[in-house]
C-alpha cells in the first residue's frame, strides 16, 4: 500500500500547480487575489513538508500576508480611481490593442523552452550530493547561535543579509519618490466587537513577533519573520485608521528605515576595527551581537513593510486644490 503521506504530497503539489493556473486564469481581480493568497498558504505548507519551517514562516508572513495586503490595496486604488467601485478593474486595459497571435505563440514557445531547460537541469542534477550542511555543522560552535539557518543568515553569510536590508531601504525610498500626498479617506466604522478584539489581539501579535525574533537563535524564526509579524500590527493600525501618517512623523520613520542597515554596518565596522574580518564576531559576544543586529533589523523591517503598504510619503502637496480652476 502506498504511504498516505505520499498521497498528501501529491495532492498538495497538484493543488499548487492548479492554484497557480487558476490565479492567472481568473477573470475577476478580487478572486484572483484570494486565489493567490491561498496559493501562498498552500506553498508554505509544501515548504513545511520539505522540512523548511523557517522559509514557510517567511513565505506565510511576508510572501503571502504582506504581499496579499499590498495587492488588495492596489486593486482598491485602481477601482476607486476609475470611479466604478463595483466594476472589474481590468476594464480600463481592455481597450489596449490586441496582441498579434504570432507574438503570443513566440512568447509561449520561449517560456516552454526555458521551462524545459529547467526540467532537464533538474533531472540531470546529481541526486542529493553533499551540500553545505557539513560545513555549516562544523562551523556551528563558532556561530554563537544554535539554529543553522540563523547562523547562515547573520554570521556565515551576513553580507547577503546586509544587502537584503539595503534592498528594503531602496524600495521604501523608491516608493516615497513615486507617490506623495496625505490620504483623506474616512476612517472605517469597525464597531465594538472589533475594538474589543483589537485591544486583546494587537498586544498579543507584538508578543508573538518578539518571541519569533528571540526564538530564532535556537529554532525556526528570526528577524525577518518577527519583523513581518510586527508589521502586521502596523497594517492593522493603518487599515482601521487608528494611526494616520502625518508629515511630522517622517523624521522618525526615516530613522527607523535606516536603523537596521546602520546597526548592521556599524557592528561590521566595529568588528573589523578589532583586527578581524567584518562579521567574524568574537565568540564570547557573538550571540549578543547577533541578537542586537536582529533586534534593530526587526524594528526596521516592521516599519519599512508598514510604510511600503501605506505607499505614499505623507507630505502635503503644494499644488493640491489648484487644479480645480
Amino acid at each position: 500500500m502506498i504511504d498516505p503521506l505520499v498521497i498528501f504530497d501529491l495532492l498538495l503539489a497538484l493543488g499548487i500547480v492548479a492554484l497557480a493556473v487558476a490565479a492567472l486564469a481568473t477573470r475577476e481581480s478580487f478572486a484572483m487575489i484570494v486565489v493567490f493568497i491561498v496559493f501562498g498558504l498552500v506553498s508554505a505548507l509544501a515548504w513545511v513538508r520539505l522540512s523548511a519551517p523557517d522559509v514557510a514562516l517567511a513565505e506565510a508572513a511576508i510572501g503571502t500576508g504582506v504581499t496579499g495586503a499590498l495587492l488588495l490595496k492596489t486593486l482598491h486604488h485602481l477601482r476607486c480611481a476609475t470611479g466604478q467601485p463595483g466594476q472589474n478593474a481590468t476594464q480600463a486595459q481592455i481597450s489596449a490593442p490586441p496582441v498579434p497571435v504570432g507574438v503570443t505563440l513566440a512568447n509561449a514557445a520561449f517560456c516552454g523552452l526555458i521551462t524545459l531547460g529547467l526540467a532537464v537541469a533538474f533531472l540531470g542534477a546529481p541526486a542529493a550530493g553533499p551540500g553545505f550542511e557539513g560545513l555549516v555543522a562544523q562551523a556551528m560552535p563558532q556561530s554563537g547561535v544554535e539554529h543553522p539557518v540563523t547562523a547562515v543568515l547573520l554570521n556565515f553569510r551576513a553580507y547577503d543579509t546586509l544587502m537584503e536590508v539595503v534592498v528594503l531601504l531602496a524600495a521604501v525610498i523608491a516608493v516615497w519618490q513615486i507617490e506623495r500626498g496625505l490620504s483623506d479617506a474616512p476612517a472605517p466604522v469597525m464597531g465594538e466587537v472589533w475594538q474589543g478584539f483589537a485591544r486583546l489581539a494587537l498586544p498579543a501579535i507584538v508578543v508573538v513577533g518578539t518571541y519569533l525574533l528571540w526564538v530564532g537563535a535556537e529554532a525556526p524564526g528570526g528577524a525577518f519573520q518577527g519583523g513581518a509579524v510586527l508589521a502586521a500590527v502596523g497594517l492593522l493600525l493603518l487599515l482601521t485608521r487608528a494611526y494616520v501618517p502625518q508629515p511630522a512623523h517622517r523624521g522618525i520613520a526615516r530613522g527607523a528605515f535606516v536603523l537596521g542597515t546602520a546597526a548592521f554596518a556599524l557592528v561590521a565596522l566595529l568588528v573589523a576595527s578589532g583586527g578581524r574580518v567584518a562579521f567574524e564576531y568574537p565568540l564570547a559576544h557573538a550571540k549578543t551581537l547577533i541578537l542586537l543586529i536582529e533586534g534593530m533589523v526587526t524594528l526596521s523591517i516592521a516599519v519599512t513593510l508598514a510604510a511600503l503598504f501605506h505607499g505614499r510619503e505623507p507630505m502635503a502637496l503644494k499644488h493640491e486644490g489648484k487644479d480645480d480652476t
Partner: protein
Amino acid sequence: MLELLGAGLIGLGAVFFVAGTVGLLRFPDVFCRLHALTKADGLGLALIALGVALQAGTGGAVFRIALIWGFVALASATCGHLIARHARQMAGGRHD
C-alpha cells in the same frame, strides 16, 4: 490510551471540517454559509487542537496549542462578525 483518545478527537474534528465545507458549498445564502462555516470550523479546530495536545504531551507544546486555539477562536468570531456586517451593508445598499 491518550494516543487513541487523541486520534479519535482529531478524526471527529476532521468530520466537522468536512461538514463546514459542505455547508459553505450547499447552503443558499451568505448568512447560512457563515453560520455553518464558523461553527463547524471552530469546533473542528478545537477538537483537533485537543487531540494533538493529548498526543504531544509536553507542557510547552500544550501551551502553544492552547494559545493558537484561543487566538483562532477570537479572530474567527471577530472576522465572522465583520464579514456578516459587510454582507448586510451590501444587501441594505442594494435595497435602498
